Every structure is written in structure tokens, then in C-alpha cells.
């Protein structure tokens, strides 16, 4: 769940997605879901000679399971916040009273990441 939240903070930033077939696609991250499926806008392929048919495609849905790496702009990652969030992961912190566990988990991260 932490990485899901992390990627949510990257929405509207430009990222480069490297697939397991060595394809690299640059685009603006528009949405992520819990499986880290991605939706990119305004895409361009770094190897557009090999995939000319992507020129007419503007937004792309990429299945999370086919992704190898996501290259990020270092400026868009708040490392201290991320470290903090991973240390303070919900599994270390007992849920506060009267609050459903699942909700606390997510809220904890979201508060940390300031989404």
C-alpha cells in the first residue's frame, strides 16, 4: 500500500516506464491503482523507430505486471518523507483506539506523505 500511496504523490509528474520487453515509455502519470497499473498521458516512446504505431496513441494504460522499472525525476521524490513513511509503516504502529485498522493504515501513510 505504501508504494501505491507513493505513486499517488507522483500523479501529474513526468515519468519514464520501462517494461519487461525493454520498451521505454515517457509520459505524464495520470493515475495508478493498487496493482500499480498505470495510466500515462501524452506519451512518447524512447525507441519510436521500433514502435511507430504508438505515434498516434496519446494516452496509455499499462498493466502493472508488465512493468520492470519506473524512472522518476529525483526532484519529485521527497526522500525523508518516504523514509519516514516506510519506517513508520502501519505494521509498526498500533492502530489508535476507535479507528478501524484498514482506515488507520492508509490514513497514516497519507498523512505522512501529505497527499
Amino acid at each position: 500500500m505504501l508504494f501505491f500511496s507513493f505513486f499517488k504523490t507522483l500523479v501529474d509528474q513526468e515519468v519514464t516506464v520501462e517494461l519487461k520487453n525493454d520498451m521505454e515509455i515517457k509520459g505524464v502519470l495520470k493515475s495508478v491503482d493498487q496493482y500499480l497499473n498505470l495510466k500515462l498521458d501524452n506519451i512518447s516512446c524512447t525507441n519510436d523507430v521500433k514502435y511507430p504505431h504508438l505515434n498516434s496513441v496519446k494516452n496509455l494504460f499499462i498493466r502493472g505486471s508488465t512493468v520492470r522499472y519506473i524512472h522518476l525525476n529525483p526532484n519529485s521524490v521527497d526522500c525523508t518523507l518516504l523514509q519516514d513513511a516506510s519506517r513508520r509503516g502501519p505494521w509498526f504502529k498500533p492502530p489508535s483506539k476507535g479507528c478501524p485498522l484498514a482506515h488507520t493504515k492508509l490514513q497514516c501513510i497519507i498523512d505522512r506523505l501529505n497527499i
Partner: protein
Amino acid sequence: MSAPNSRSISDGSSNAEDLYLEAYAFTTAAALVGSVDRKIFLLLRDGRNLFGVLRTFDQFANLVLQDTTERIYLDAEGSKSLEKPARFGETYRGVFMVRGENVVMMGAVDIDHEDEHLEVLQNIPFEAAEAELKAIQRERVQAEKQKTKSLLSRGLINDFTKSDLY
């Protein structure tokens, strides 16, 4: 269901779409809502390129495409790689229903520009393209098998499966 020919209308409603997406935030399905009834490009894990109109989908990202064409891109004649397409073959396939797990990616195609890249490519019969592609893939599978063997013998494993050809 309307044909995806009215660009201005669909562009005008993109804001409403965004709202809808936000309401259903972060489910696989929501990401696809905006592409329904549009012409889309779909890449499968076995390397197939499909172009068709997305009609419906569900939470597993199972997709139904109508008026689908399958297209194979090949390099210049005699080349054994798939690096720089110079030829293509295509065939009409009709209604497709794809299981979500076999999808690599999909995106809406700009129908005004979709054929631009084909103009510089040579159109060849689909059967010929298919046969040639099969031969290339067979070689690739063979090579990967060899690689897996030698990796295994050194105690390293890679997870190439025969179905991953994209």
C-alpha cells in the same frame, strides 16, 4: 453505442470524464472508462498488436473489442530482427474478448493520425507476415531456451516464458 468519430464531442466531455475517474479513483476499471467506444490499440503478452473499438470491460480488465484488426510489423526483407519495421500485414478479426492477464498495454488511438506511420511501410499479405513472424519467434524461443539452460547451470534463473514475446 456511438461510433468513435466525434472528436469534438468526446474532447468536450473529457472534464466530465475526469470527474468520473476521480469518483472511482484508483481502480483498474476506472482507468479504462475514458476509452470506451473509442478506437484503441492493444498489445498482448504474446506480442500481438490489435486495433479495434473498445466496447466493454470489467474489473479484471477483460476487454471486448469490436471490428478488430490484427497487425504484424516486420523489418525489411531478410532481416531477422524486429527493430525497425519496414513492412506490415494486417487482417480483420471481428469481435475479440481478451482476458485481462494477457494485456500489456492499451491506449486510445488518434484516428486522424493512426495511418500516418503506415504510409512509409510496405503492405504485405497477412499470411506471409504471420509465417515470417512465427519463424523469428521460434528462433527467439530457441535462443531463450539455450540462455535459460546456461543460466540454470550457473545457478541463475530468468523468468522467460514462451508466452512472453511482446
